[in-house]
């Protein structure tokens, strides 16, 4: 997601990484990222106040799993959605499901607390398909969502390649995959095509 934004230039987007103090995502975009502690009020102020006061940026907020419920409680309590709408900001929530039924239940809860945001469940094929469990499928059916995204399973080699600190999807695309072993190049290219096609398809709805 962030790489997609970075294609428009480093000055067009900002990343808030709540993986404090590590900032794994921020490590890939150091010039545009801030690592902050969302459990502290100062971190909350930094995220929400910045988004509402510097509306010329696109933002990615990478939320740690343990902060998810707290984040959306504050999001709802402080009336962020209404303020965002008044500032002409569009909010999209990408919720990554894991292999537990509780994950689908959490997605349902979160989708209810951000009523006016675009809610997009993301399923990772590598995690298995939780929707084969009837109870999960039932809850999933109750989630208000605009579309969903399915991440194709990647090989271990491809995952290791993507995890390299200097890897960037944007550079991969810009260089047309030059310098990447052919097998991985095809796999990553296919992965990106599948993901971005789903995204574009949703955007056109």
């Amino acid at each position, binding site marked *: 997601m962030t790489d997609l934004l970075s294609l428009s230039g480093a000055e067009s987007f900002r990343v808030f990484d709540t993986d404090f103090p590590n900032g794994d995502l921020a490590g890939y975009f150091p010039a545009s990222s801030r690592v902050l502690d969302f459990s502290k*009020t*100062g971190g*909350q*102020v930094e995220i*929400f*106040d910045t988004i*509402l*006061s510097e509306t010329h940026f696109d933002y990615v907020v990478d939320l740690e799993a343990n902060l998810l419920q707290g984040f959306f409680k*504050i999001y709802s*309590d*402080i*009336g*962020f959605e209404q*303020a965002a709408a008044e500032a002409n900001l569009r909010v999209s929530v990408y919720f990554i499901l894991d292999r537990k039924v509780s994950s689908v239940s959490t997605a349902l809860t979160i989708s209810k607390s951000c009523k006016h945001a675009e809610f997009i469940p993301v399923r990772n094929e590598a995690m298995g398909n939780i929707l084969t469990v009837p109870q999960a499928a039932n809850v999933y059916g109750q989630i208000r969502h605009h579309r969903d995204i399915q991440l194709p399973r990647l090989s271990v080699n491809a995952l290791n390649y993507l995890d390299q600190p200097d890897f960037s999807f944007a550079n991969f695309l810009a260089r047309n995959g030059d310098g990447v072993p052919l097998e991985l190049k095809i796999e990553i290219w296919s992965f990106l095509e599948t993901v971005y096609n789903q995204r574009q398809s949703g955007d056109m709805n």
Partner: protein
Amino acid sequence: MKPLLILVGADKGGVGKTTTSRALLDFLARRNVLARAFDTENPRGTLHRFYPNIAEIIDLSRVRDQMKVLDTMQSAAVKVTVVDLKAGNLSSALDTFEKIGVLEAARSGEFDLALFHVVGPSIASLDEMGEVAKYTKGLSYIVARNFINETNFFEWDEKTFKKYFAGLSNAREIEIPKLNEMAYEQVDLAGVTFTDFIANKTPKGQDAEYSFVLRGYVRKWISDLNDEFEKLELIKSLLAPQQSSSDPSESNENNA
């Protein structure tokens, strides 16, 4: 409308008494109920700092200042009077009011009197409830459990509180919910009312630049607090003046 005297007090300091007074004055203002206030935190006047136009600093131990509050209730254009009692002065103030006949006048219906007793997390706060009970018969007695500056472990549990509370037949209970500490500090620093902070206004009414998040925290807190105040019969009567002149014994808070 019959005058209403609201006393806000606690015998223990640091339980959020003035915050409760501020919240109450804010609530009344939002509901378009005119009120005047007396701040007995003499000479500093914390409440006065936030409400310079309606709050006067007085020394309740001085007869002249007692007269300023009590002798003007009938004649004042503003019928609601809020008195923020100095920390540690609740029992002595009630004792004085009992001796000079203020409590009896309220019991006989000359005016309405409500006591907001702010209790904090210590056992001492609970003991206070028993101590003031002898003064509150026939009056509206509201125990405000203050969680706003909850920084300590509560020394009492719910069961203990209910045990104390059960001994007070006429008491009603509200909770002052916890407010985010940074939000509370910022309101304090700004020296504005909670309502003005939410509206992003300076004390002089100019546009301010308070944090959206902190304003959001205060907005949510105020909303929760509204629910607490609105469940009180005293407040219901105040907001529906046509009913306030009815027999005070009908009020749930006056059933002692």
